């Protein structure tokens, strides 16, 4: 999975809301061209938590290393065809930054060979450097060759990349994108759309880390629902992190509270509370409890005992015209309380109630088919007077599409998910419903997630 790195070559950085961009990506690309606007002073003025990845397309690289270091650069890139490459690499390292070598479209990859083990990143240009808005030159064969030279080096591609060209460079680690993002009316929306998969992957990493650190928790369902929660919090729900009780907000009721790590990760990453709270999961005296409680900003209901959430969501939908989203699990369809709420929602025509079921076919002690077979859930909900949509719960586009709803009946979205999604040894296994990965298992899981990035 390729990460997106927005490039601010042609635009005015002072007009950008970096706080919003920080939700989706980790780095920003800054091109320094002769007589260009990104002098060290200008770069210093950019206040952001994003890593500054600076490409010095100027003659005097060495004189500019310290000034850009002081401006906050983490990585300095310069062209492999420069003079004194080794000297420059040494100086950049001495200044405490990472080194990237840029290679033009017409330059052969072998030029990198003398330096490939000495650098951190390779910047593969897919246009002729210096000006935005050029057409993409296909350099995908270079990526494979560079990986063979040094599998540890990070490969980033810059130049004329659009969403459709990402496929062509899928083996690269980072795609640097400028005009495709910033020529649009809503650049942050474009960044979001391109990065959502990566965000969901970050959520998965949070889940593994939280549960491993706490030595207890429920990874299976949480990993399976990471895509749904990512879509909800980054791409659908209406809320205000600065006014948590905003009366016009969409409500989200989590009924199967044990998968709360997925929710906590999203709440932290969109800004309801600090990300530093995540490592305190389940710890004495810390905010994030093993199951959600109402003193956590962004949580609407305490949950844990199954079958109760839909009732509460129905009550909210009954008393308010706001949208109410409810997440339930397939296991808790065993509880009678759930069906009482189903009947009530149909009776009172709760069209503002949108429920998403984590249909992962497992529960604590086994597969749902063996413990308590649920048979045809779609038919059941239809007969009870709901509208039903059935989707792949691990497909971001399908999730987003299914949430677009206006109707007089309550909606059930049966999200078919793989429990433990993203971690090969957890996928599909009910044993991982409530088992915490030990340090070795967690490390293996994070490696897999990092590779899929």
């Amino acid at each position, binding site marked *: 999975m390729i990460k997106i790195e927005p490039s601010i070559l042609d635009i005015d950085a002072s007009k950008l809301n970096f706080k919003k961009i920080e939700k989706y990506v980790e780095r920003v690309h800054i091109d320094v061209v002769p007589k260009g606007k990104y002098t060290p002073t200008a770069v210093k003025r950019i206040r952001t938590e994003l890593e500054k990845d600076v490409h010095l397309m100027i003659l005097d690289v060495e004189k500019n290393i310290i000034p850009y270091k002081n401006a906050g650069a983490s990585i300095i890139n310069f062209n492999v065809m420069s003079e004194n490459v080794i000297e420059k690499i040494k100086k950049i390292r001495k200044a405490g930054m990472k080194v990237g070598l840029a290679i033009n479209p017409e330059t052969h990859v072998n030029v990198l060979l003398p330096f490939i083990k000495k650098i951190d990143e390779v910047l593969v240009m897919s246009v002729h450097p210096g000006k935005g808005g050029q057409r993409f030159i296909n350099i995908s064969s270079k990526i494979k060759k560079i990986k063979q030279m040094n599998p540890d080096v990070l490969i980033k591609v810059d130049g004329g990349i659009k969403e459709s060209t990402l496929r062509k460079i899928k083996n690269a680690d980072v795609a640097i994108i400028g005009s495709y993002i910033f020529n649009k009316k809503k650049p942050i929306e474009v960044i979001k759309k391109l990065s959502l998969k990566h965000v969901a992957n970050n959520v998965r990493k949070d889940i593994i880390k939280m549960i491993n650190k706490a030595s207890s928790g429920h990874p299976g369902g949480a990993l399976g629902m990471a895509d749904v929660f990512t879509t909800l919090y980054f791409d659908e729900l209406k809320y205000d992190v600065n006014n948590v009780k905003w009366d016009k907000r969409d409500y989200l009721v989590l009924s199967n509270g044990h998968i709360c790590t997925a929710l906590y990760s999203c709440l932290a990453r969109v800004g309801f509370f600090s990300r530093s709270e995540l490592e305190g999961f389940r710890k004495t005296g810390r905010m994030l409890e093993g199951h959600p*409680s109402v003193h956590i900003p962004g949580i609407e209901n*305490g949950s844990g005992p199954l079958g109760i959430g839909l009732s509460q969501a129905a009550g909210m939908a009954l008393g308010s015209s706001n949208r109410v989203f409810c997440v339930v699990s397939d296991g808790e369809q065993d509880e009678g309380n759930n069906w009482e709420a189903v009947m009530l929602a149909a009776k*009172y025509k709760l069209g503002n109630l949108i429920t998403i079921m984590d249909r992962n076919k497992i529960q604590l002690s086994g597969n749902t088919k063996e413990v308590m077979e649920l048979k045809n859930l779609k038919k059941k909900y239809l007969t009870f007077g709901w509208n039903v949509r059935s989707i792949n719960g691990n497909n971001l586009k399908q999730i987003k599409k299914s949430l677009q709803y206006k109707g007089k009946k309550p909606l059930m979205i049966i999200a078919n998910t793989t429990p433990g999604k993203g971690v090969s040894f957890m996928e599909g296994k009910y044993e991982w419903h409530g088992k915490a990965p030990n340090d070795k298992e967690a490390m293996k899981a994070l490696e897999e997630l990092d590779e899929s990035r």
Partner: protein
Amino acid sequence: MKAGRDGFGDALLALGKNKQVVALTADLSPSVRMDAFKKKYPTRFFDVGVAEQNLIGVASGLSHVGKIPFTSSFGAFMPGMCYQQIRTTVAYNNNNVKLVATHCGIDVGEDGAMHQMLEDIALMRVLPNMTVVVPCDYNQAYKATLAMAKLKGPCYMRVGRSKTMEITSKRTPFKIGRAQTLRKGKKACIIASGPVLYDALKAADEVGNVRVINLHTIKPIDTRTILKAAKECKKIITIEDHQIAGGMGSAVSELVSGKCEVVRLGIDDEFGESGNSQELMKKFGLTKEHIKKAL
């Protein structure tokens, strides 16, 4: 004579003027006296059918979006069928839900043991954040309902089924948490909750020099008044239409703990049975004769 549940129903109707007040029941509207509210404010009345767990969840959801839900059913069904939901969605979430259980106690009569809820005070008073009120007559049930609407947070009120004697008047003050001393005395002290207060007063008047306290609020309990009685009286007798284990008598015993003798009158660790309400009271030891004997 009027029933406690009528006091609730009439007060609920009066509260209907407040647009945030909503009423919910589980197919028991006539019995819990919600019909008048239902007729006058149909868009603010909800019937969930015979589904008490859902009743609680929905009430919690409604309170979360700013409504003041009054939720009513028989004690045997609420908290009987839905304790977890009350514990999690009302008490733990600290939601502003008002639970009114009617048909509590042996007083239920002919319907028999299964419908005679004798354990509800015990169940409800151990929940954090819960206020527990047991009014003694129609007037007090009316005032308690109004008081609950004003209070922020989870509230539980229990009433019986029968029409009972009028003990307080429309002018008798009522404040949640403040016990009422209705008779002075030092020989002994009877603490009563609910309509059995009537028999307590009768017994005290016949014996003389016996203090009588109407402990309408079990939680938060009026520590001062009870400890004063423990200090000044030779013994305390508690009486309630409820198990003697865990109810008001136990709450008083916990508080008094060794400072003075406490005799708990009520249902002694058994279930009820079918029969005429008054006759059952006699059979299970809830009359003035039993109180006099304990004195």
